[in-house]
């Protein structure tokens, strides 16, 4: 048996060539443990945010991260099951900074905060490890935001456009469709040359399972990674998850690709950080958050960027989500994140319960990058739309008092009512940008004025259907040329007129 001899020979060589050197290594001893935090004496040369290895009495190994470097001990956060760690257990250094596996292999997967798979698709084939914490790209590497992220949501693409590399906050009370906007945005990135990372922080696992199923159904998992730190995971994992998600995104950024990262949500992230900080006895400040919660979010969101050509030209677009209590925008975390981001989409409970969904408040929502992230055709039809929508609401409230209004006001009200109808959109029903241009064009040119308000949505659905069947060339032209030149405008007008003819 040649093979057997060969194997034995190989083994002999391996063993002869193996040199076990005894290396000087520093170790620590657990002094105090509880609530996911351990104080470790020794480890005098440990690095900040270095991975540690706790060796329990039963020989099991639990990992941890150095969090506090103090005069005579080290405060460590335990990642995983801390119930088995006892006082006096040995702690080893790994000499590695906390990092997660990244690569093409993570696409389509559900991973935990440390990048380990938690779906049933087997181990992840990752070529590289990226540090979880990284300094954001500097000024020289960046450039202005200029390409749009098409969310497929009419109200957003028209009024608060989002650009590649922008940070747009989605803010609102619980249960009024914040996650829905983020998920719709991910779904409509199909074929847009975009990778997506959805980071779920402190979410119910059932909700995340639903989202993953929905993304799979829509074919969106082909370009999406879900990073999950569920409600039952320890605070340490909740704290790390957004940074891990960004590290996964940075791999694609370095390859010059565009990435969209959704952080759902950062209020729970701040709460998890507060928990860790208080357990480590850092002094509490406003709302008991530690002094560096601002830095917590600013260093995360600064990693969103649009790099210039010399540095690969990739981008990371960040969509952080913040949950408010009873619409209170002036609480600590909401004000912090509003000031960090390049604008916010404010969702309002009143609008939601009136049936205006997505419940975007046009007056309070802004995009500081603004129209440079819109295609020209959209700019042309939607330039004034945000102001119109905001004015309509005030006017409508005012008009309730009397019925004798002048013609101009009446016309504005009628237009506003129809605009509001058009901005309504069902969940998972994203609209491509060319069709958006079509319906908005119909609105501002007065083609919808003779349609009853309650029939507007029906009219719109019909128009989209008609356009797909009979006006493919026009839609394609808008997509390619990206502006409404004379020829295209003529075609669009004709398409709408033809459609109206079929109605009568």
């Amino acid at each position, binding site marked *: 048996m040649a093979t057997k001899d060969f194997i034995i020979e190989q083994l002999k060589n391996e063993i002869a060539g193996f040199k076990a050197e*005894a290396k*000087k290594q520093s170790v620590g001893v657990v002094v105090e443990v509880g609530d996911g935090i351990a104080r470790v004496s020794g480890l005098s040369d440990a690095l900040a945010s270095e991975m540690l290895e706790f060796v329990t009495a039963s020989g099991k190994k639990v990992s941890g991260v150095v969090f506090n470097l103090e005069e005579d001990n080290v405060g460590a956060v335990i990642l995983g099951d801390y119930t088995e760690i006892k006082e006096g257990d040995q702690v080893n250094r790994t000499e590695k900074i906390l990092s997660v596996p990244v690569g093409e292999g993570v696409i389509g997967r559900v991973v935990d905060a440390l990048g380990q798979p938690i779906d049933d698709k087997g181990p992840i084939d990752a070529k590289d490890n990226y540090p979880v914490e990284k300094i954001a790209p500097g000024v020289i590497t960046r450039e202005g935001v200029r390409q749009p992220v098409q969310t497929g949501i009419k109200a957003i693409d028209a009024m608060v456009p989002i650009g590649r590399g922008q940070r747009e906050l989605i803010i609102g009370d619980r249960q009024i469709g914040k996650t829905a906007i983020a998920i719709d945005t991910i779904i409509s990135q199909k074929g847009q040359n975009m990778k997506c990372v959805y980071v779920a922080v402190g979410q119910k696992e059932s909700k995340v399972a639903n989202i993953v199923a929905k993304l799979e159904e829509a074919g969106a998992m082909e370009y999406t990674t879900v990073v999950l730190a569920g409600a039952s995971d320890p605070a340490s994992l909740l704290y790390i998850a957004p940074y891990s998600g960004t590290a996964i995104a940075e791999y694609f950024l370095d390859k010059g690709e565009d990435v969209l990262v959704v952080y759902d949500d950062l209020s729970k992230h701040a709460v998890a950080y507060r928990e860790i900080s208080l357990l480590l006895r850092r002094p509490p400040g406003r709302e008991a958050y530690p002094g560096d919660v601002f830095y917590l979010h600013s260093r995360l969101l600064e990693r969103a960027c649009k790099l210039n050509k010399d540095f690969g030209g990739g981008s990371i677009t960040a969509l952080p989500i913040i949950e408010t209590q009873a619409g209170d925008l002036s609480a600590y975390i909401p004000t912090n994140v509003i000031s960090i981001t390049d604008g916010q989409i404010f969702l309002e409970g009143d609008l939601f319960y009136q049936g205006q969904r997505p419940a975007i408040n046009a007056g309070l929502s802004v995009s500081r990058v603004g129209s440079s992230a819109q295609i020209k055709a959209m700019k042309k039809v939607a330039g004034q739309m945000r102001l119109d929508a905001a004015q309509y609401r005030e006017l409508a409230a005012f008009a309730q008092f009397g019925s004798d209004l002048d013609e101009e006001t009446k016309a504005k009200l009628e237009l506003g009512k129809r605009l509001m109808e058009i901005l309504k959109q069902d969940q998972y029903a994203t609209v491509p940008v060319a069709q958006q241009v079509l319906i908005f064009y119909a609105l501002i040119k007065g083609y919808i004025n003779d349609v009853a308000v309650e029939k507007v949505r029906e009219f719109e659905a019909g128009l989209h259907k008609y356009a797909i069947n009979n006006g493919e060339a026009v839609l394609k032209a808008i997509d390619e040329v990206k502006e409404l030149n004379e020829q295209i405008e003529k075609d669009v007008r004709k398409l709408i007129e033809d459609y109206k003819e079929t109605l009568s």
Partner: protein
Amino acid sequence: MKISAKQYARGLYEAVQEKKDGEVKGVLKKFIEVLVKNNDFKKAKDVIRNLDKIFREEEGILEAEIVVASPLKKEMVKIVKDYVTDMSGAKKVEVAERVDKSILGGVIIKYEDKIVDGSLKSKLSRLKMNLAK
């Protein structure tokens, strides 16, 4: 201002430094009086522990533990002692020997928060890991 056990210990160590053996007793008495006055007598235990540490630190005495599979010969102990002295830069090394059959062979040296694992057991387990790769 609160005085920590460490500060007490250092103070005591420095106070005793230049005293003759006869005077030490008086210093100690005074020290205990200070502890009682500051309502810090409960720290006495910590002070003693810290004093031990400071004394070793100042005098350059290092406590090391060596774990072996079977009791070492005198010459071997000296070799290990010299090795540790060399590595740690201490003036004097006190060695406590512990026999643990489960390490099979070789030696494990522990001092301060450092550990040098030269045991046969860990070498074998590393070899096992290497072969498994």
